[in-house]
């Protein structure tokens, strides 16, 4: 547990330091940028349009063209870079994602800059390493742990599928989570508990700022849990398992950062690898899992076939209701 705490603190500190460093260039939106002008990607040659003219077009653009949004562009127009003079835009630029609205400074969101490119797939796919702490309300779970809380880990992937507006996104994901605990129960038995859950989830994310994203998530899935009770009397361990339907609802925040780049640059958010720390709290609701334990089947087939038929016992049900704290680190592409 100490290692876990240390890991979370280190992760938090790293992201916090990164965020603090990135705040420096994000402040002076009205000041001239010291960064070099952005490199425009040369468009593909179009019939009658000399390539050279296209390459020369940025030279006539003001150096602050990114920070100074095109005055002629309507506030809610699709995010496209204004074509330089003498340049003929391609007729059909391929887009993958719904187009985003350019940033409107009238929103009053400090440090939020215009994105004139469609985000495409970039920034929409997230891979999460999750850490959940669940406080099961049912005392039955105490049989397998010395403390009321259980820590689980897992992985999940999520894809931003629906973009309701410029800031409101809906992700759908698929995840796997496992938890285990082991303790001594009744001063005689080693009690081992393991569970594996596969789930789908839907996450509504609201990009309040480029680095601070409140979110709400619901999930549903299937869990298989197993229990083993063994002692040193020489008898076979008692094993059993059960399936349970699990669901959860929770809310939290997602803190975004890009290693080695400014946090407030939307392009940096969307066009490259982004690291996210997600902290979320909520409630897991699962069906009760009735556990019937029976002696473990011998490994040797011959011994197993020779064994007397045996009747196991039902040790009761594990409750599935638990408040949880979800912490995950995510890589967004």
């Amino acid at each position, binding site marked *: 547990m100490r290692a876990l705490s240390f890991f979370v603190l280190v992760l938090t*500190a790293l992201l916090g330091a990164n965020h*603090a460093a990135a705040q420096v260039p994000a402040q002076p939106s009205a000041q001239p940028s010291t960064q070099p002008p952005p490199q425009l990607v040369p468009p593909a040659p179009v019939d009658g349009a000399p390539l050279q003219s296209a390459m020369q077009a940025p030279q006539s653009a003001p150096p602050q063209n990114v920070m100074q949004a095109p005055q002629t562009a309507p506030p809610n127009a699709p995010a496209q870079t204004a074509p330089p003079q003498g340049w003929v835009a391609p007729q059909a630029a391929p887009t993958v994602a719904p187009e985003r609205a350019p940033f409107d400074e009238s929103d009053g969101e400090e440090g939020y800059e215009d994105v004139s490119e469609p985000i495409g797939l970039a920034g929409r796919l997230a891979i999460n390493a999750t850490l959940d702490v669940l406080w099961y309300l049912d005392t039955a779970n105490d049989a397998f742990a010395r403390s009321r809380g259980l820590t689980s880990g897992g992985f999940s992937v999520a894809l931003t599928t629906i973009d309701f507006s410029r800031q409101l996104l809906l992700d759908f994901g698929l995840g796997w989570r496992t938890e285990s605990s082991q303790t001594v129960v009744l001063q005689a038995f080693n009690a081992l508990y393991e569970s594996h859950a596969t789930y789908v989830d839907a996450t509504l994310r609201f990009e309040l700022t480029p680095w601070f994203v409140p979110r709400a998530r619901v999930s549903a899935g299937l869990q298989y849990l197993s229990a083993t009770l063994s002692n040193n009397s020489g*008898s076979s361990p008692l094993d059993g398992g059960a399936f349970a339907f699990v669901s959860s609802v929770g809310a939290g925040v997602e803190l975004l950062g890009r290693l080695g780049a400014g946090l407030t640059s939307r392009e940096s958010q969307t066009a490259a690898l982004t690291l996210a720390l997600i902290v979320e709290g909520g409630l897991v609701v699962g069906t009760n899992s009735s556990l019937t334990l*029976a002696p473990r089947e011998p490994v040797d087939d011959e011994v197993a076939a020779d064994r007397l038929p045996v009747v196991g016992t039902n040790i009761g049900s594990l409750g599935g209701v638990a408040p949880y*704290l979800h912490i995950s680190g995510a890589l967004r592409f």
Partner: protein
Amino acid sequence: MSRAWQIVALAGVVALGATSCAERAKEFDTAMNVLPPVALGASLVYVDSSVQTAYVLDVTRPEAAPREVALGRGASFVARRNEHDEALVLCRGERGGVGVDPEASSLTVVSGTAGAAPRTYVLGSPFNAIAQTPDGARAIVHFRTGEGLAGLLFNPNEIAIVDLEAEPSATNPVRRTVRSFGGVPSAVFFSPSMALAEGPRTLAVILSDAYVTLLDVDNADRPEITVPLALPEDPRAVLPVQVLFDADDPTVYVRAVASDDIFALRLQEVPAAERAGNDFRPSLSQLAVGSRPNDMALFDAGDGQRLIVPSRASRNVSIVDARSSSVTTIPLDVPADRVLVFDATAPGDPELSPRALLFTTDGSASSISFVDLVDVEERRGRNVETRAIGRPIVGALPLLARGLLVLQHSSATGAPGLSLLDLAARTSAPIFADVPLENAKFGANETRIFVAPSFGPRLGFLDLGTFVPGEVRLDASITAVLPLADAPIVAVIHGDLAGHVTLLDASDPRRETARSVQGFLLSNLLARGDE
């Protein structure tokens, strides 16, 4: 670090800290304390005092969850109620402590029949022993020396008389204190129905150091009668150990260690005009039977009961007529410390008549003595026949319904471990065995005897009709064998703390028809934290 990051870090630390600190229910840290199981008609009763629960396992439906019956705290003893499909569980209660309320001791009657509600008799004091009448109608709960006596103040001569046929009430059980000369009860014996002046009744004989106490169980409000077995100045520790009853000529016979006499308490009628309480008065007589009597038994001599008493030290057997106080001493060829009275024919005597077998189980003798009890006082030594068994005897298990006695011999390689003695033919059949008889049990109808080794997974059995032995290999080491009276099943108890029983067909014990039940003492384990 921004405020948001600080909040996140703080939340993480708090969450992880909370995970570490929340403690689980203490019930999961309580060690199990399971008493040896008892067999009822068709069920087994296990008692786990740590969770105040009796688990009733129906052996005819092993797949069903065991029935759980709530008990009081401190269950310390469980026994089958005589002649009933019920178990008696003695709970010593709880003295109380920080966070633990005190609880009075109790006696709970657990039925082997599903649906029958348990009955709990509140006893009050933390008794540690129980005795019951042969018909199971009444029980006396008492203190016994040397078994966890505790309490700031307790009276070791307090007893509780429980009418098990009646529901618990303010007058059931009856608590009282028996008169004491400084001793503590060591055992309680119940008489059969004795022919007394006011009608047949059951008496309780409470044994204490150097005295016995007679108590009218059917009239618990009447005063007890205390009979010293030695004079106050007698330095001997005359400790009564064995009691026999003559129900027709109401007499109580008491044998005591450190005494060369048998104590006969003839219960004489008290004239109605003189009765202040009891309708009987014991008349004590001491019957000299030689040196240090080792055992005693009653037999019907036609004109009344006689007592037969072997004495190993004097190598003789005494026949006692309590009414006349006459003692007939018969010398034996081999010493004997055990006597078994039975009705059987004998070689050359087709008459079914009372006979006695005298033997010793201390391993010092390999011969036994048969005594024909008809006219023994006249014929004396002519009624004695000595037979050689071949090996020293260290144990005996009578099976009088079949006219058999199973003798156990000291273990030796290449020698028979058991002998089956035909009491009528007076012949013995050697059986090679390497298991002691302590764990031997007869199956239903006494057609087989089952013996469990002290280690190993093989259960031995012997067909008492054909003398053909057999064994069944099981999956775990055996600790006890419990035949069931109302089901053709033999329950083999294994030493698994979670509960492990193998059920065998008593009429045809084979591995192919055996099945096991395991883990039933952990039934509803996960619900223990809710309590």
